[in-house]
């Protein structure tokens, strides 16, 4: 008996060891490409040019220009996230209600544009929205008033919604297809109408998907600098642009890193909310 137990322990140990060995490349990868760069951001962010510790780079967020850029970023990201949610939820429901063969095809169609480079798709929007762009040529042809949103916040929101919409649709879709149809049937059996079923059964069950969708849209929208550069004509300074210019134009890596740390705080805060909701969500689902 004892021997058998020993062998079992040995086996388990072996399994653990293999697991550790197999995860080594991943751990190494995370160390080199996640932890080390993060460490460098903190090192640069918390020192000045002579290498002495300072929090000036972080508190620089309080200056008028930086604070304005941050609030503008938060505002535009919130609006974009909300619009994404409004568009994505009905879409995810339509996708989820299709039968199996069709829906994998439609999901594919939906994801297909994401395989194209994000930069190219944003550049395409620039060409579409320009004063002499494709949309305005078509409008002009029908003698309709021209659409002048290029280089305005509206164009940036459009770019954000367009680029990040799939990140909202897919998590909601995933949580919708996980709902056992019997749960919905039971609700209907017990006399709930369509609206009640939706608000009392379906929506609460998809909250984890919604929350992770919000995170996946809000975070990239908050940190983008390409969309505001291409569709905002560089006239609208978001916090992402400020950081980018500190690195590429001004050559002040310390300030750029310090502002990145501030942005990280917002992102971590967002992720904590998401984690809390997701945990509850998992509990409800079981």
């Amino acid at each position, binding site marked *: 008996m004892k021997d058998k137990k020993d062998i079992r322990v040995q086996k388990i140990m072996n399994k653990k060891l293999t697991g550790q060995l197999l995860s080594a490349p991943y751990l190494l990868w995370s160390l080199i490409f996640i932890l080390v760069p993060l460490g460098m951001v903190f090192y640069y962010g918390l020192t000045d040019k002579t290498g002495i510790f300072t929090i000036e780079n972080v508190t620089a967020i309080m200056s008028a220009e930086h604070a304005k*850029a941050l609030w503008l970023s938060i505002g535009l990201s919130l609006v974009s996230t909300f619009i994404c949610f409004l568009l994505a939820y009905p879409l995810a429901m339509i996708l989820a209600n299709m039968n199996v063969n069709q829906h994998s095809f439609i999901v594919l169609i939906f994801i297909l544009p994401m395989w194209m480079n994000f*930069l190219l798709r944003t550049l395409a929007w620039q060409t579409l929205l320009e004063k*002499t762009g494709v949309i305005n040529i078509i409008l002009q042809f029908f003698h309709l008033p021209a659409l002048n949103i290029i280089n305005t916040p509206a164009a940036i929101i459009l770019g954000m919604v367009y680029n990040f919409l799939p990140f909202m649709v897919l998590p909601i879709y995933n949580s919708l297809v996980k709902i056992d149809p019997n749960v919905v049937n039971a609700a209907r059996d017990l006399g709930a109408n369509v609206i009640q079923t939706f608000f009392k059964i379906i929506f609460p069950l998809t909250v984890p998907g919604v929350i992770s969708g919000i995170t996946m849209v809000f975070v990239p929208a908050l940190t983008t600098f390409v969309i505001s550069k291409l569709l905002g*004509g*560089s*006239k609208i300074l978001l916090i992402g642009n400020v950081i980018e*210019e500190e690195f590429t*134009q*001004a050559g002040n890596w310390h300030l750029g890193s310090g502002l990145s740390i501030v942005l990280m705080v917002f992102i971590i805060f967002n992720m904590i909310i998401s984690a809390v909701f997701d945990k509850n969500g998992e509990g409800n689902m079981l």
Partner: protein
Amino acid sequence: MKKRLSMLSLLATACVSAASMFSLTGCGGNASGENGEVIVYNWGEYLDPETLEMFEEETGIKVVYDEFETNEIMFPKVEAGATEYDVICPSDYMIQKLIDNDLLAELNFDNIPNARANIGSQYWEQSKEFDPENKYSVPYCWGTVGILYNKTMVNEPVDSWSILWDEAYADNILMQDSVRDAFMVGLKLNGYSMNSTDAAELETAKNFLIEQKPLVQAYVVDQVRDKMIGNEAAIGVIYSGEAIYTQRENPDLEYVIPKEGTNVWIDSWVVTKNAPNKENAEKFINFMCRPDIALMNFEFITYSTPNDAARELIEEDDIRNSPIAFPDLSQYSGLETFRYLGEDADQLYNDLWKEVKSK
């Protein structure tokens, strides 16, 4: 001062530099040519790629080619030494900054006979602004910064930077999205030097730029060219090298050097201090100074060449004597070349520019 790197070529650059990283680290021996290699770091689309092939064929030296979009992006990469570039092509003030930081090697002009033979004396003279003894740099391209306007949209004569503040052209003006170029316009309009470090003068220029902002359609770098060709805007601030190209594509466009004066810039070949292939680098520069090669490059990129022998070879009279490509600079006043102003002044410029951009 080359500004023609589109987002597309930015992507391509990313791929190329990834590929060149592999060839640098992966298999050094096999990748290089029979006579070694030379690592070149140039502006995007700033030479005829065919000349690289010709160089490789004639010398047996493999060219590893990499591109940058702005001087400011180039500098930290060279300073950090992450990739050991041999030859770089920065602009005037950035060459001065590289010299100040002891990052450049003195050239052995015995290995570059074509340089002294073919490049006009006035360009060597002008280079003394940033390279006082002509020891470090060989002029490659030069030009001015001016106003490109569309004759169908602008009916009055254009001769002053002040048209960029004219409300009649609201939402039809394109400004340069880089700090020194934007402030150059603001400073020159007020009659100040574009190398000013005077806080009050810079404050005035900043206020002018803020006042101008509601009229500006977009701040762009390389897209001025495409937007002007596409009739997207009426007036744009542009590098003279782009003007010939845009006029070929859209004959309604006209280029002027404003009467208040402007930036006369030079981009020059330099060799880094720690260049692993210094001799090959000098061979490369020598090759680029050969009249036929300089001509190929001029015809490809349309940026003015300081190579007098190459200019003689240009067949079309109107291009050889073009007032855009080869202006008679003595006609203009207020012409200057950018100088490196030191870290404190850089900081001041950047802070003021941020104020403009966030308004």
